[in-house]
């Protein structure tokens, strides 16, 4: 029995490692879809800590994603050296900060923002919390859009471009890697980086879930007053949930910036927050396999549709293009899946069991 499980793990692992190599034969665009799906998994797992474990509905999660992305963008693009003479003087060859410096800074800053948002909202009930977090996300976006004057920090709606690709252990992920005659495309290298990050995140998140802190979060989710009566410090625990969730968001933001090479406020709209919440809830709130499934479904499937939408567009005389079709299907999926399976596609086997009489 135990051998069987080990075999399973090995097979799944081999499949995950082989996936980009197979996909890249059909074109890099397919690997890119897999990369984005992995990034969304990271985000969904991060948000799951806040919404799934601690039960705090956060509709502004993309703000932390944005903080991470802008941190990476500012520290490794020519924008700051172009704008400020004193920075250009300090870094004559341009600011090319190593990822090992940016990543902790981005994670810490996003975590700090998470706590900052958490602090005033601790007293609020579920729905009020939703709207305040939503407002917070919008505030961050408006600032990113407008902080190009009087001092140009974020470059406004034009966004930051020429961001360095991620380079790790001396391997520049922006270029293809040749091992002998075998070529691994840049997108596939990113795939491996994101995959390992996702694995780390899954382990961390799972250990959190079964830890004392995780149980405390779930107690708060089920009944905050009872949790308080049991001696839990609900204030600190909620702050911790916000901070942890935001940290994951910040890390994926930094990855996103390095991967894309260009970021602008447009990538961090409210719609993105909504999509991430939808991934968590559609998959199965508080249950890691469900959350991962939800993230893959909502991020990868619509992209795949892009390739089949061509004929449809001709049929409807251009009214129904790929982007519209994608939006339409995402919306329908959200409604239909919730109507058929209100607990999500792959709900946690334990969650909510005590509430239903046998």
């Amino acid at each position, binding site marked *: 029995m135990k051998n069987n499980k080990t075999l399973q793990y090995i097979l799944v692992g081999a499949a995950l490692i082989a996936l980009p190599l197979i996909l890249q034969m059909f074109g890099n665009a397919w690997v890119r879809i897999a990369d984005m799906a992995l990034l969304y998994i990271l985000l969904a797992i991060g948000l799951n800590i806040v*919404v799934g474990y601690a*039960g705090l*509905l956060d509709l502004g999660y993309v703000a932390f994603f944005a903080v991470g992305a802008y941190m990476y963008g500012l520290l490794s693009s020519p924008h700051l050296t172009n704008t400020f003479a004193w920075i250009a003087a300090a870094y004559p060859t341009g600011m090319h900060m190593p990822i090992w410096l940016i990543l902790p800074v981005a994670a810490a800053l996003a975590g700090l923002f998470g706590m900052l948002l958490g602090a*005033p*909202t601790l*007293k*609020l*009930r*579920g*729905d*009020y919390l*939703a*709207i*305040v977090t*939503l*407002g*917070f996300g*919008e*505030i961050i976006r*408006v*600032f990113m*859009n*407008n902080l190009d004057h*009087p001092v140009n920090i974020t470059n406004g709606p034009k966004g930051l471009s020429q961001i360095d690709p991620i380079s790790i252990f001396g391997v520049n992920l922006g270029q293809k890697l040749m091992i002998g005659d075998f070529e691994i495309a840049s997108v596939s290298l990113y795939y491996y980086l994101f995959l390992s990050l996702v694995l780390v995140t899954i382990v961390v998140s799972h250990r959190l879930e079964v830890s004392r802190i995780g149980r405390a979060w779930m107690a*708060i*989710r089920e*009944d*905050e*007053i009872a949790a308080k009566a049991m001696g839990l410090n609900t204030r600190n625990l909620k702050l911790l949930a916000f901070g942890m969730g935001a940290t994951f968001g910040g890390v994926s933001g930094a990855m996103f910036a390095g991967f894309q090479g260009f970021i602008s406020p447009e990538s961090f709209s409210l*719609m993105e927050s*909504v999509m991430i*919440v*939808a991934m968590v*809830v*559609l998959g199965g*709130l508080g249950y890691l396999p469900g959350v991962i499934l939800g993230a893959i479904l909502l991020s990868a499937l619509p992209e795949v549709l892009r390739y089949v939408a061509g004929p449809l567009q001709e049929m409807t005389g251009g*009214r*129904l293009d790929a982007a*519209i079709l994608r*939006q*339409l299907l*995402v*919306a*329908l*999926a*959200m*409604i239909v899946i*919730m*109507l058929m399976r*209100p*607990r999500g596609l792959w709900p946690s086997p334990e969650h*909510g069991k005590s509430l239903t009489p046998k």
Partner: protein
Amino acid sequence: MDVFLQQVINGLVMGSMYALVALGYTMVYGIINLINFAHGEVLMVGALTSWSAIGMMQDAMPGAPGWVILILATLIACVVAVVLNFTIEKIAYRPLRNSPKLAPLITAIGMSILLQTLAMIIWKPNYKAYPTLLSSTPINMGGVVITPTQIMILGVTAVSLAILMWLVNYTRLGRAMRATSENPRVAALMGVKPDMVISATFVIGAVLAAIAGVMYASNYGTAQHAMGFLPGLKAFTAAVFGGIGNLAGAVIGGILLGLIEAIGSGYIGYLTGGVLGSHYTDIFAFIVLIIVLTLRPSGLMGERVADRA
């Protein structure tokens, strides 16, 4: 001083539209505890329907006076919005009434995206010029300028609010609604049909949203499939600001929010020496919201409810 009065009038106009939409949110929330995310889209459908109706009527009867066309178009928009909101509740919210709390919220968000996309397919994504049907010459009142459209908005809002207050406080339906929001189970035992009351709530909300949609489009002179999002969001903010579930609170919250935005955006450039400009208008609503909720977590007029997350 004139600048100040002018901004007060602009704020009142904006605020009364927020108030109408906020009422829809707050009534639905008061009865079934659901943030109806698709409510802003009902406003959008109302505005776009009236735009189409106006176009058709102007072709059919070229000589008709503007106000007649506007009233007819508003009526048509109301009917379409009512049918739409009634259907949304029936298919997307009713089956989920006893499911986990986040499920109906997700279908509501899905509905909102769906309606926007469908509107984009039906009406195409470009901005449409909304015809000016009332006279466009502004009226000068002691240095303060107000357009006939703005007067109409204030008047229509006042009338709608009066009718709504009468409906809620002095009719059988109103009593049933208040009873259901107090306690649905006991209300059902007393012979109130909760399903009927909930449908009625969505119908009333749709009428108010459609009226607000027509006025919003006439005030700005444009209509588009994404126009419902921002007013919807701000109206919800207004409802929370006033204390969600409380009708008077929604009205006061809406008008206050409109005033804060108008006065804030009028003075922010002057106060900060041009560092921050009026493009920060949209975040006033949220900053105010965060401050109010921190100091008074159940809104201005909300009852203090026991903390049940």
